[in-house]
């Protein structure tokens, strides 16, 4: 059973308490008369319903995850060659999270915001890999004209609001985007992604409070990749079951296997029903893992090689979906062909990013302000 806030329709309420009998919290006395809504309290270890994907959908997820993986591998190479500078945070290992979530939302209507580990989110939003890679290499054709870099990329057209370099800032900003959805009554939902590290920042809780108080359509997505730089969740978080972090604000939480794209998609489908239905925010904790260092200059002293290898072998999201596809009768060579196609796309993006000119020096002074004063 999925532990999200129950919807008001009786069918679903009746269905809810099947395996566990979660305690019902009393509704807020202040709002109770206006909106009587039973709230299901998640008790941990709950399994999200697995999304029943068609073969075509599964192939699409596979291709998207593969694109992110190959793109990031290439970015790592370009960094090693000195073509990408500064900080570069790779998403390898976490592909199922963003793929499962982004395929469930409405790109024209909903908004997405994340932190600095943002390349995967942009690709999952359907943004052209060429201009993402060109931003990484600091070129004029980059999505931010070369002025943002790896951590600061945006595409309002795709509902992608960054790309933010300050840990936790995107949670307040995302709550503001949700505020705008509600204010404009446009039916949109904001997905605000942040990591296990950011989940200890003060402004995250300030935002939780206001999001629930004002019943904003926001999904707080904690990508728990186990390490905030080199500090493991256990060493930084008094409550390490991060899906419970919204409890004192009456925000229900869901814990999901973030290495399984179908589990992620299945969970978010349920969550979206509630958030779109006007029940206020829901918190999702996606348990995932990053294979690479925090950034390119990670000493990797805080975990063993064996630990990483173990996850790669046992839980890799791409391998897992590949096995499911093969089981469904998809041929190995078809998957190889997909891989080839993705590699070509990434190769072209890298060439584009390398060959594009650097921004004109006059760009130094543009876009500081919108207006002339």
């Amino acid at each position, binding site marked *: 059973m999925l532990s999200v806030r129950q919807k008001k329709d009786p069918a679903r309420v009746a269905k809810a308490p099947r395996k566990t009998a979660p305690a019902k919290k009393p509704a807020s006395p202040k709002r109770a008369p206006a909106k009587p809504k039973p709230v299901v309290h998640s008790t941990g270890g709950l399994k999200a319903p697995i999304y029943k994907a068609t073969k075509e959908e599964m192939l699409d997820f596979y291709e998207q995850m593969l694109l992110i993986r190959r793109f990031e591998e290439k970015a790592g190479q370009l960094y090693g060659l000195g073509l990408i500078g500064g900080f570069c945070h790779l998403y390898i290992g976490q592909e199922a999270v963003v793929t499962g979530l982004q395929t469930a939302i409405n790109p024209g209507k909903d*908004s997405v915001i994340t932190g600095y580990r943002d390349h995967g989110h942009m690709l999952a939003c359907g943004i052209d890999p060429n201009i993402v890679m060109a931003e990484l290499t600091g070129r004029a054709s980059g999505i931010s004209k070369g002025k*943002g870099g790896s951590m600061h990329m945006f595409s309002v057209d795709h509902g992608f609001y*960054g790309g933010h370099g*300050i840990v936790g800032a995107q949670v307040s900003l995302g*709550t503001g985007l949700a505020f705008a959805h509600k204010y404009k009554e446009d039916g949109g939902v904001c997905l605000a992604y942040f990591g296990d590290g950011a989940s200890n920042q003060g402004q995250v809780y*300030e935002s939780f*409070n206001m999001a629930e108080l004002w019943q904003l359509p926001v999904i707080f997505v904690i990508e728990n990749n186990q390490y905030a730089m080199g500090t493991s969740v256990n060493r930084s978080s008094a409550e390490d079951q991060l899906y419970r972090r919204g409890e004192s604000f009456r925000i229900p939480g869901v814990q999901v296997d973030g290495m399984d794209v179908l589990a992620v998609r299945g969970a978010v489908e349920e969550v979206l029903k509630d958030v779109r239905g006007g029940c206020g925010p829901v918190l999702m904790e996606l348990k995932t893992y990053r294979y690479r260092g925090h950034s390119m200059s990670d000493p990797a002293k805080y975990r063993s090689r064996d630990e990483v290898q173990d996850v790669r072998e046992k839980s890799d999201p791409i391998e897992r979906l590949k096995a499911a596809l093969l089981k469904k009768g998809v041929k190995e060579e078809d998957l190889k062909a997909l891989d080839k196609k993705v590699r070509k796309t990434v190769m072209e993006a890298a060439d584009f990013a390398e060959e594009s000119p650097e921004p004109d020096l006059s760009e130094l002074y543009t876009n*500081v302000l919108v207006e002339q*004063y």
Partner: protein
Amino acid sequence: MAIELKMPALSPTMEEGTLAKWFVKEGDAVTSGDILAEIETDKATMEFEAIDEGVITKILIAAGTDEVAVGTVIAEMAAEDEETDSAADEKPAESKGSKEPAESNEPEKADEPVPADEAKPEIMEEAPAAPISRADDPSVPDGTSMVSLSVREALRDAMAEEMRKDDTVFVMGEEVAEYQGAYKVTQGLLEEFGPKRVIDTPITEHGFAGIGAGAAMGGLKPIVEFMTFNFAMQAIDQIINSAAKTNYMSGGQMRCPVVFRGPNGAASRVGAQHSQNYGPWYASVPGLIVIAPYDAADAKGLLKAAIQTPDPVVFLENELLYGRSFDVPELDDYTLPIGKARIIREGSDVTIVSYSIGVGLALEAAGSLAGEGIEAEVIDLRTLRPLDTETVLNSLAKTNRMVVAEEGWPTCSISSEIIALCMERGFDDLDAPVTRVTNEDVPLPYAANLEKAALIDSARIIEAVKKVCYR
């Protein structure tokens, strides 16, 4: 002994108020905690409670009296056990007053003169400024009639006008709605625009500044009120890292049209943590507009401009100016240009550059200096970023001498910036070193005498002007 009941100060900056209502009459026995009277200021209405037990012997200020200075004796009472004696000591003729019907005495007492308030801090003394003309303002057509508005009302009107025009404009902050504004700047907005657009936030500056910035990124035009800018330090990351830099970092794709506004600078006797001028802090950040108006017309015209512009704005008000009234043009849409200073007083001998509350002190100084044969030109910068360097340099070229007056610290200040500007681009026009007059370089102390010593005043500006004029 008679106990004197004095007009209370309801806030650190209150100088006078209206004695709206008496809840007791002469002869009434009161105990500690009883409500004696209702006092009104332009900011708030408060109940005045008894602290001692006794009998009200005299009511000296009648209900409905305006402009009663803080500290004025408004009534007398006798402690219960020595009522007769004490009254006899003080005013023998009225020793039985407590037993007579109160009504008979009231009209007489109302006519008594109200003592002048002698405890007014220096900085709160308004300049006996020459009437400020807005004739130089190109946006004010000849013959426009003027209305006298307080800075507080002008700010409220600016917000209300923009909210009527544009549905995406809303106000959020602590106590902006039901309380009607901690300093009453948002008074009446909830009533007109409702709770969807006038939003009380919890006390979480960091969070709601981020929500405001995010809502702006999402296509709205938020006005985020900080109760004072001292509390915005909790939120400064969102102001600088999120609001100011997004347009640049996105290559011009993503806008953040938010206004962060609230009182800035020293108020009165509120100590170091509540008394700081953030003008120089924000003015150092590319990507922000920083506005710090002095008078009501500028407050209105520039706040409207701030709300309209697609760029993020830090709008620095001043609590001590909220209650002061100035002429404001009666125009339908009085919007002023951002980034333009104003020559508020013309002069030929020296230029005094200032902004916000410093402008009042500069005008006061200029008035005194005129009596000594020194004609000072006074420039109100109005916008601190982008700075109107041309107006400053043109005035320097005319007067060849300059003093910068700033209610704030000297180090890395707007004054420092103006001095650097004059060195770099006006050196040949200088007949004397540019001098700055600022607050002392210390956290603002609480004690009245120390606070007075730490804050800029007109006497120091006069002294500096004489120095650069070699007088």
